[in-house]
């Protein structure tokens, strides 16, 4: 079975009396250790797709399986626990905690979610910070880092719990072209190093080229797979 299996999934948002069909009857699967991107214009359903795979939202119809578990059937607490144990997230606006240093931001999931011991935490954080090339910046706060550096820290935070799957919603949207390509290449090298599946969404054709599998969404429908 694939790492991610989407079966006939639809997602409809109710806005007042208006219904917005964000996803319509989408079926797809994503293999383990793959490097996948969702592309498409704004409102095509990319973020909704990532939210469903990331257990942040539930489909109106259909089933979502991640790591052989039917995550759409999880309750609130189970979804939180699953996100903490099996998933990593990278956000468009980096979403680092401003009161924590680089090191503490990366350490956060191990303290607040995994309850790892101090010595284990130190080893894991140092290793992943070294992998993303940010170990020398470990005592800096987010407002002392550039956009590209912040996203590297975000990648490290997503990887530190050794998740099976990392989801990134437009991770390069707030970066210049060079930094964007660097971050995507970093993500790809992390996939190679840790065998972690990466799924991200993007508008950027330059970033798209770095993906191994490209799913194109239009009006909530999956129109192409490359």
């Amino acid at each position, binding site marked *: 079975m694939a790492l991610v299996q989407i079966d006939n999934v639809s997602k409809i948002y109710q806005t007042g009396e208006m219904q917005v069909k964000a996803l319509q009857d989408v079926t797809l699967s994503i293999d383990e250790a793959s490097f996948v991107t969702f592309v498409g214009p704004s409102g095509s359903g990319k973020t909704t797709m990532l939210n469903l795979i990331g257990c942040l939202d539930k489909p109106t119809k259909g089933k979502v399986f991640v790591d052989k578990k039917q995550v759409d059937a999880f309750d609130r*607490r189970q979804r939180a626990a*699953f996100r903490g144990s099996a998933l990593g997230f990278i*956000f468009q606006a980096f979403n680092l905690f401003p*009161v924590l240093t680089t090191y503490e931001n990366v350490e956060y999931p191990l303290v607040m979610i995994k309850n790892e011991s101090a010595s284990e935490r130190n080893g894991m954080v140092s290793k992943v910070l070294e992998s993303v090339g940010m170990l020398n910046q470990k005592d800096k706060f987010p407002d002392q880092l550039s956009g590209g550096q912040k996203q590297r820290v975000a990648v490290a935070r997503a990887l530190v719990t050794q998740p099976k799957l990392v989801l990134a919603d437009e991770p390069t949207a707030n970066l210049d072209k060079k930094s964007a390509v660097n971050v995507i290449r970093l993500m790809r090298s992390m996939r190679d190093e840790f065998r972690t599946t990466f799924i991200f969404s993007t508008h950027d054709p330059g970033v798209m080229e770095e993906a191994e599998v490209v799913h194109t969404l239009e009006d909530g429908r999956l129109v192409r797979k490359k």
Partner: protein
Amino acid sequence: MIRIFKIALRNLMRYKRRTLLTSLLITLGLLMVILFSGLAGSFREMMIGQITDSNLAQMQIHKKGYVSSMDTSPLNLTINQKGYKTLEKMLTENPDVEAYAPRIKLGAMLSNFTETTNVRLNAIDPDKEIKVCPDVSERMKFSGSEVPDILLRPGEIIIPEKLAAGLKIKIGGSVVLVANNKDGSVNGLNFTVVGIIESILGPQGKEGYMHIKDAQSLLRMEKPEVIEIALRIKKFDKLGDVYTDLVSALAEFKNKKGKPGFEIHTWEKLSPFSNIAKMIDIMTVSMKIIMIAIVLISILNVMMMSVYERVREIGTMSAIGTAPGRIMGLFLAEGLSLGLISTLAGNIIGILGIYILNIYKIRYSFGRMDNLLLSPTISFSELVWVSATVLLVSIFATLQPAYKASRMEPVDALGHV
């Protein structure tokens, strides 16, 4: 846990001015309560001490019905010798009673042989009285600067300052006391003035002291009788419990009609100051309620703002798998830390304030008592109580915002603008 508090403190420091202002407000509230409790409490304790230790005693036993007609100083409601012996036995056997003293209260006419005026007198057994009211001599002036070993001997009288001035009587002078006994017959005796007493809280400052044996002679009591028995207990803070015990013990003594023969009252029932003491207590409680409101509103406001400003951050925490309970804990730690910092500051400044007030020695007058020294103090238990209240209210005020944060759906919170 330490990490949660570390993050909470850093989050508080993110908004330095807001945290400082809120903390200052709570600190001021706490300071206000500590200083008020210290000042009002010491005033209350001092006045109660003055009343119970120099004049009234902590409790009094009378024949049933005496207190309701106390203003007329009735001489027919006396405790006879047999009754006194019975009560004496009961009080001696009670382990909580430290001392007791018999008294006769009477009204008389006092004359310096040219002028006459009325006077109220406490007839006491000096040896016993000093044990019940150890400060009885504190406001008395004698011929020498020292208080004599025996306060009063038979044939001696201590008269109120106002009467001494009005009748131009000096220590060592002679006076005549004329009094009616309970049957209406009149008797008079000569006395030597051995002391002058400053007014305490007696009616119009006309309350003097004489020996109980003289009062029994003056009132032509064939057998020794007393009007009241004043009591002092070992632990004043157990007054209520001892009073209840004594009420039960006294209930067993019935008169010929089978009804209770004696009554007992604490100082609170006998002195009008108890109403002032109650008002002080009410004002102290009011100050505490104001402080609780300050803490509640300010922390609730700060924490609600904190949650609204950090919706995306909460969404991030939740998205990466932080359990709702942990998110709630993080915000509770913030509220508690704010309360804790303010409590520490309030306690330190409050104790310092009380220390400074003690250095500058505040003196005041109350009624006809002048030059009373106020020594504000606050007990450790009071500090603990006030601090615990602030901390509990801090947690309570944070509960709603913290719960709201923990219930946020990550998908909505992340999309918050």
